[in-house]
């Protein structure tokens, strides 16, 4: 054994790794900048790392490269005008942000029970569709960065189907602005349920293919297993929620613990991980997609008929036929558009389950049609803040799957 090693060294001039780890070998820490424009970083984030060789000794994640002033803009916009801004928060699951914000304002108005039931079912359905697109984008992009380009294309193919259906519902593929205070802006189109159920069957096939490609793949498992382990107590102390929190064993899902809309009528499970590494985060997301599809099927089976928005002219726009034909409706329309909905003074913190975790809206209202303060509690802000701590001791190459599975969405983190 030794002779072959020595001859190899002599012939090839190769050094074995054991030779390189010595106290006499000079090493110095090197600052490395993974700058704001980097192919493996989802969106824009800058990481200033101190590395020794390939090991990271210190990590400083700098966010804020997509700060688009959601809070400042919402102080100048009426409550309905804020919906497009909320779309662009977590832009891979826009409906979930709309739902969170609409519920916050409805709680301030005190009209939560008066939102029509059909509207609540529709909100659940489109919200879960958005959650599926969120997880598809996260897993597709994460797998692509590890080299599995096919998985990315499969996920995008499936995401296209959902985008087409969401476009039929709301008119836009990505930034829907579909919800309104008091309901949704328009009803589901005809034949939607049949199309959606057919697509769900096809999405299940795609997910089966993806599972075959990734779940037992040696390369994928080696890069994801045991990397970036977060314990349950760390998750609670650092405020992690969503798939990242649930992968550590912290079983907190707003849909189950504090049900809102009609989630308490559906039968679904919440996947919880055990180890807290990257592979757990991947599996939690895959399983959540399956559970979302279960919720959608149950919702489509039991959705009632009825109006899709409240019939209160102080909150919801009157139907167009009335607006053109009666003066009261026209005046109500005018007041709602120009002044906004007059929300009584007060404060609320309303939380829903966004794509990345507990999406909170803290709204302070002063009685006019524009909020005094409209704050988003971004789930991925807390999820990323723990990475400063977790990346120490990992290799540079481990940043890629860790960051991919943390799912930082710039629009939400930086608002």
């Amino acid at each position, binding site marked *: 054994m030794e002779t072959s090693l020595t001859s190899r060294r002599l012939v090839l001039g190769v050094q074995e790794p054991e030779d390189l780890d010595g106290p006499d070998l000079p090493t110095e820490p090197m600052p490395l900048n993974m700058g704001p424009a980097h192919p493996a970083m989802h969106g824009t984030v800058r990481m200033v790392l101190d590395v020794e060789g390939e090991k990271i000794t210190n990590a400083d994640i700098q966010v804020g490269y997509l700060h688009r002033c959601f809070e*400042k803009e919402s102080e*100048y916009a009426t409550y309905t005008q804020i919906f497009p801004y909320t779309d662009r928060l977590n832009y891979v699951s826009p409906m979930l942000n709309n739902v969170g914000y609409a519920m916050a304002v409805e709680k301030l108005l005190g009209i939560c029970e008066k939102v029509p039931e059909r509207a609540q079912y529709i909100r659940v359905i489109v919200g879960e569709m958005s959650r599926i697109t969120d997880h598809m984008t996260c897993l597709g992009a994460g797998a692509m960065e590890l080299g599995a380009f096919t998985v990315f294309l499969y996920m995008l193919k499936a995401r296209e189907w959902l985008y087409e259906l969401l476009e039929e519902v709301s008119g836009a593929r990505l930034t829907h602005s579909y919800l309104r205070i008091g309901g949704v802006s328009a009803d589901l189109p005809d034949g939607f349920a049949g199309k959606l159920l057919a697509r769900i069957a096809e999405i299940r096939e795609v997910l089966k293919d993806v599972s075959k490609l990734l779940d037992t793949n040696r390369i994928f498992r080696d890069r994801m297993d045991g990397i970036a382990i977060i314990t349950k107590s760390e998750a609670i102390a650092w405020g992690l929620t969503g798939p990242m929190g649930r992968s550590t064993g912290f079983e907190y899902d707003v849909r189950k613990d504090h049900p809102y809309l009609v989630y308490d009528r559906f039968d679904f499970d919440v996947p919880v991980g055990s180890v807290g590494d990257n592979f757990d985060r991947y599996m939690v997301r895959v399983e959540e997609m399956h559970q979302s599809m279960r919720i959608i099927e149950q919702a489509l089976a039991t959705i009632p008929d009825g109006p899709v928005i409240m019939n209160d002219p102080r909150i919801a726009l009157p139907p167009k036929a009335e607006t053109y034909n009666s003066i009261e409706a026209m005046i109500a329309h005018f007041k709602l558009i120009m002044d906004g909905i007059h929300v009584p003074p007060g404060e609320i913190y309303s939380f829903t389950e966004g794509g990345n975790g507990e999406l909170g809206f803290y709204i302070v209202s002063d009685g006019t049609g524009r909020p005094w303060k409209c704050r988003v509690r971004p789930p991925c802000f807390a999820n990323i803040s723990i990475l400063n701590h977790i990346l120490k001791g990992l290799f540079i190459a481990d940043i890629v799957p860790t960051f991919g599975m943390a799912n930082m969405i710039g629009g939400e983190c930086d608002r």
Partner: protein
Amino acid sequence: MAKIILERLAAAFTGGEIEQIGTQHGNEWARVRRADWKRVAQFLRDDPTTKMDFASDLTAVDRLTREPRFDVVLHLYSTVKKHRVRLYAGVPEGDCTLDTVVDVWPGMNWFEREAYDLYGVRFTGHPDLRRILMYTEFVGHPLRKDYPKEKRQPLVRRSGLPGTLE
């Protein structure tokens, strides 16, 4: 449901630390005296009845015409008891400081940095208080009500634009 938190607070702090309590739209809240912020926070985390081990959000509100001008707002949640509470601390503009809660809940690190960045509230004892969403060359605290929405401070100089400093 979460009234028990307010009752425990009223029972444990009798020296005027809790200035005001209330409930609105199902949210329980308590206004804490600025000097006792950290003590109340630690009590809420450690007390077995309240057990607020999860801090979800920390932000600030600019009340503008009220004295003290800023309110630092902390939202707490208990993963065991499943109840929530909101704490307020009034921070005046002249002495814009407050104790940090990073050693109570480490997750509030970035949230406090953001409150400092956007509102100018300094948290004493914070390990790394610097700007997080705005760049270091930025002058001012943009979310204050007296900062105009469109006042840009460009890093790549483009002179003559409306809204630039020059």
